[in-house]
């Protein structure tokens, strides 16, 4: 349904999107995951025809987003990063306006508006002025606006921003319910969101794709890999050297002792290496006390950090 090939967008000297390629199948939910400034919004703006790419192509339902922009726009519902609302309109007149500019025929408009209001739980706010709504309600009007013309493709830029936890769950369920009939791309920084709602994930960082896979595969890809959590008392530099020398150990992060907590160490090991016994042996060998040692499997969160953070900054942050 959506095919993106070598898409690149530069703002002057800044390359916001750098040779990005991916496809989304009909009825699928694709999650766009990346830190701030990764290029998620930029990619979505190109897909929706808001701005042209510097190079590369993108097709929606077989139409080129640039050359056949009108055809693409007819088929897309889009929630921009900032919900595009008219504060002086009521929710209902706003949705009516959007339905009109999305070419919904007059006889279908009331039913479509009701449907969008129902799906976003806005029925009791339909005659309220948008400017009087809270942030979360405004966000919901933004989502309703993207659904009102029942588009084939729905692109949502951070749809759950500003919603309360209950609403977040409702919006996720709404999105899941839309899949099948609609093809959906959503962006987020929230990892659980991706694992809960999406069929596939594109992890993007600094404009480049770091990984494309199902949330399950991404998690299991590094499942074999291991993270070992240790509490001990040892000179930091020596400890780091000793642990780093263990074959298979990939990264050592040491958090110094603080009031109320002991020195903690995290050692990461590559896939297929169980180094727990070796770590224990080394510590005992040096006569350091070993208070705790247990293995933790990597979560999606860790994988995300692994893929999107470079080593320099990672060494400073403890995980």
């Amino acid at each position, binding site marked *: 349904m959506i095919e993106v090939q070598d898409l690149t967008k530069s703002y002057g000297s800044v390359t916001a999107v750098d040779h990005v390629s991916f496809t989304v199948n009909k009825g699928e939910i694709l999650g766009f995951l990346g830190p701030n400034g990764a290029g998620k919004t930029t990619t979505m*703006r190109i897909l929706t025809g808001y701005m042209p790419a510097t190079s590369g192509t993108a097709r929606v339902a077989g139409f080129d987003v640039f050359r056949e922009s009108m055809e693409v*726009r007819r088929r897309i519902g889009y929630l*921009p990063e900032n919900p595009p*609302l008219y*504060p*002086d309109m009521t929710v209902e007149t706003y949705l009516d306006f959007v339905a009109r500019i999305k*070419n919904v025929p007059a006889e279908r408009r009331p039913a479509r508006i009701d449907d969008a209001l129902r799906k976003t739980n806005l029925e009791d706010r339909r005659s309220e002025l948008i400017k009087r709504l809270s942030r979360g309600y405004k966000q919901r009007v933004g989502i309703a606006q993207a659904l009102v013309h029942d588009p084939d493709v729905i692109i949502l830029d951070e749809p759950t921003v500003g919603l309360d936890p209950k609403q977040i769950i409702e919006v996720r369920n709404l999105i899941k319910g839309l899949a099948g009939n609609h093809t959906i791309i959503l962006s987020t920084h929230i990892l659980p969101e991706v694992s809960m709602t999406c069929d596939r994930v594109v992890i993007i960082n600094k404009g480049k794709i770091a990984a494309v896979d199902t949330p399950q595969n991404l998690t299991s890809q590094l499942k074999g890999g291991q993270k070992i959590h240790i509490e001990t008392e040892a000179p930091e530099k020596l400890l780091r050297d000793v642990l780093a020398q263990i074959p298979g150990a990939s990264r050592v992060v040491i958090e110094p002792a603080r009031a109320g907590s002991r020195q903690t160490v995290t050692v990461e090991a590559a896939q297929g290496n169980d180094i727990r016994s070796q770590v224990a042996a080394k510590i005992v060998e040096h006569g350091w006390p070993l208070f705790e040692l247990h293995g933790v499997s990597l979560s999606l969160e860790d994988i995300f950090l692994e893929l999107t953070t470079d080593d320099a900054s990672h060494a400073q942050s403890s995980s």
Partner: protein
Amino acid sequence: MGSLYAIYRKEMGHYFVSPIAYIFIGLFLILTAFFFNVILSEVIKQSFQMEMQGMRFGAPSDFDVPAAVMRNFFGILSTLVLFFTPILTMSVYAEERKRGTMELLMTSPVSELEIVLGKYLASLSLFALMLLPTASYMIFMCLRSDPRPPWSMLAAGYAGVLLLGGSLLALGSFVSSLTENQLIAAVITFAASLFIWVLDIGRSTDSGGGAVLQYLSVIRHYEDFTRGVIDTSSLIYYASFIVLFVFLTVRSVDSMRWRRA
């Protein structure tokens, strides 16, 4: 077509749910009523003086009061238009960009021409609504005059104001599409309007260049209308002016995609 109408409706709704339209119409009403009174009494005073002079020299005066009032009143109207149109158009695109709703319009199956025309026609409608009450003073005056001046004269005058206003609104919309800052948009529109206004100064020079400048001035053609003359060359002038700036606005809106948006 449906989208153009949707945008037009939205703009009109925007004018009338906020105080904008009422303030504009009210202020315009007060100012024009005031000036109409001043002009009427001045002109009547003048006609008395003329009559006295006429009696003294034994020649009957042919001073046409309604025509003089109309000429003066339309003159004042044109000056008011110069001040009102920049304020009317300054937010047309600036606000849309600030709120991020431009992103909605530009990702909807709506052409730039539909966006621009919808907005332009809405501003023109509000302008016409502002003018409407002033027609009542004129009609009142004409009905009370003897001999009654031809209605065509009044119609020509209003056609002139609409065309003049329409031109400045087209100019103002274009300027508004260039900047996100409303104040800058208003100031530039005013300055640009003033500039094409005073091109008229070319009137005093008899050179060929002077004649060209004279043709380009917005106000020069307006004066024909206020004298009840509808000249084709003036119609062509205003029509081209409006078409040119609507076209430039379309290009400018289109280029927003290429600018950093």
